[in-house]
């Protein structure tokens, strides 16, 4: 019994250290964001919350000139949401359709095509960022949401996950649907999509977080302030802080950081059940 207690204590200690190690920086960022610029400049990072929470966040989100020259924090939040959602939804749609074609339409190139798609996993966006920019600029889509999202929505990971899932769906379901007079499109919409519900949710969540955290692509793509995402905004605010002669507004930079981490955290917290279900089980 005593031995067991020790084991419990040890494992818990290790876990707690891990939690502290990972969450402490976030806490310090939050605590610091609630202090005034003067306090931070005089005393450095703060561990305990201060009294400036409301004014700082209000200014960061809703006051013109609060964080950027003209754009509001809330606008950047909206841009980030559009990018995150567009990125995730686009990826799910494209990769589901690709996987559907690869698994259910037995054309000769299905397997080679799948492996080519799969190999693009080895090529991150950074490798093709110049040509992609050239294409988007040629289409006149610079500084638009479409130009920001469309080049990113092909997804090898998503295609792979959906392919594996579709392969596990029994053939008899397709045959029953064919006898029931379902068209290729009907089978996809009526049977496959509902069956993939949890899978779709899991991929949506992962991709939303990835899309939300995109940095390099939006940085290159957006030149106008009103198209900045939060992640870009954080980078820019430090630059503005460094350039200007006035008192550095560190508390607002920290506020933006906290705002930028909140949505992905919320999404994962709220949907974690779906997330786990989608990755470990499926209703068939």
């Amino acid at each position: 019994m005593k031995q067991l207690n020790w084991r419990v204590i040890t494992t818990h200690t290790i876990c707690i250290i891990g939690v502290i190690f990972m969450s402490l920086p976030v806490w310090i960022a939050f605590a610091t964001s609630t202090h005034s610029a003067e306090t931070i400049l005089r005393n450095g990072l703060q561990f305990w919350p201060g009294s400036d929470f409301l004014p700082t966040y209000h200014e960061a989100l809703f006051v013109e000139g609060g964080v950027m020259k003209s754009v509001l924090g809330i606008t950047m939040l909206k841009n980030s949401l559009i990018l995150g959602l567009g990125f995730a939804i686009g990826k799910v749609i494209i990769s589901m359709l690709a996987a559907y074609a690869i698994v259910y339409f037995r054309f000769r190139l299905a397997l080679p095509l799948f492996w080519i798609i799969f190999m693009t996993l080895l090529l991150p966006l950074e490798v093709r960022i110049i040509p992609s920019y050239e294409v988007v600029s040629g289409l006149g889509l610079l500084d638009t949401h479409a130009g920001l999202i469309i080049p990113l929505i092909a997804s090898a990971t998503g295609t792979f996950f959906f392919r594996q899932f579709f392969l596990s769906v029994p053939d008899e379901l397709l045959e029953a649907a064919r006898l029931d007079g379902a068209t290729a499109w009907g089978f996809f919409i009526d049977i496959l999509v509902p069956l993939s519900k949890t899978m779709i949710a899991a991929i949506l969540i992962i991709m939303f977080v990835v899309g939300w955290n995109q940095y390099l692509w939006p940085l290159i793509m957006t030149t106008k302030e009103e198209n900045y995402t939060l992640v870009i905004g954080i980078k820019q605010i430090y630059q503005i802080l460094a350039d200007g002669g006035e008192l550095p507004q560190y508390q607002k930079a920290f506020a933006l950081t906290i705002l930028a981490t909140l949505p992905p955290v919320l999404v994962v917290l709220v949907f974690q059940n779906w997330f786990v279900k989608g990755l470990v089980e499926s209703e068939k």
Partner: protein
Amino acid sequence: MSKVQLTNVRKTYPNGAEAVRGVDMEIESGEFIVFVGPSGCGKSTLLRMVAGLESVTSGQVLIDDRLINDVSPAERDVAMVFQNYALYPHMTVRGNMSYGLKNRGLPKAEIDQKVTEAAKMLRIGDFLDRQPSQLSGGQRQRVAMGRAIVREPKVFLFDEPLSNLDAKLRVQMRIEIKRLQRRMNVTSIYVTHDQTEAMTLADRLAVVNDGKIEQMGSPIDLYNNPATLFVASFIGSPQVNLLPATFDGQHLISGDLKLSGFGDLPTSTELVLGIRPDELRLDESGPFLLRVDIVEQHGSDNLIYGGVLGAMNDGDQETEFCFKTSQDMLPDLDSTLKLGFNDERAMVFNKVTGERLR
């Protein structure tokens, strides 16, 4: 009410494997046909070709005199019940049953009426709003049948529908399927490897072996008059007793045994004598000496298994007989029984070709 006609139907897979090698068959309107055979014999492939789930390599498939080789499964107006039910797991029972009708663009009121009617017939009316995962195996199988029934198809196709059920339920469902088919009078093709199911359900039975129809006819006809060794050994439970033998002009010779009562058989080839377990009888002057090995008590009758002393062996295997007798017959193990048989009902086959000679 439709007839189905197969003319020299063949199926060759791209890798060269021949699954079906020339099948001719006419199925009358309202008939219940069972394809029976060992696994891998091509019976399911044949069924799936009628359904349109497998392409036909050559030959013709006709429903009501209409050539349907290249007609899509949905337009063939057939309904199929699968072994693993293949219910749409995310739809309710009602959704499962109405999906096919919805795709055909029937008005909602009519769909509801048909589904309710079919559900009542199958006694699943209480489950209409449940998901398949909340149902037992037997109930799922009923839903799968309901999905087939509501379509009012020309032909019902069953692909080993009872294999996933436990033994008791299988017997119940078997009777229910038969009753349903009688009542609806729809032409049906049923695939199974279970010969009891085949015997009890079929109007006519087609024994499939190696991609060909070995023999087709009423179950009792196939039992009494099998055309080949394969049919004789496949139909009937317990299996027919087989004794390797040769003919010397007057007697069948098997090892030390000399059996009279046979004539007009070829002397040059190896033969097989087939005697059904219930054609054997206790007989002090009979030719067989059975050394009792195992006695199985089935209630109303006993099955006595044992080696036949002095008989020609098939390779290394001792020739074994099964003797079906009454429940009060309980010989000691390793004792011997003297057995005779009804030579009128004994069958003789050519061992090489399997052809029946007598």
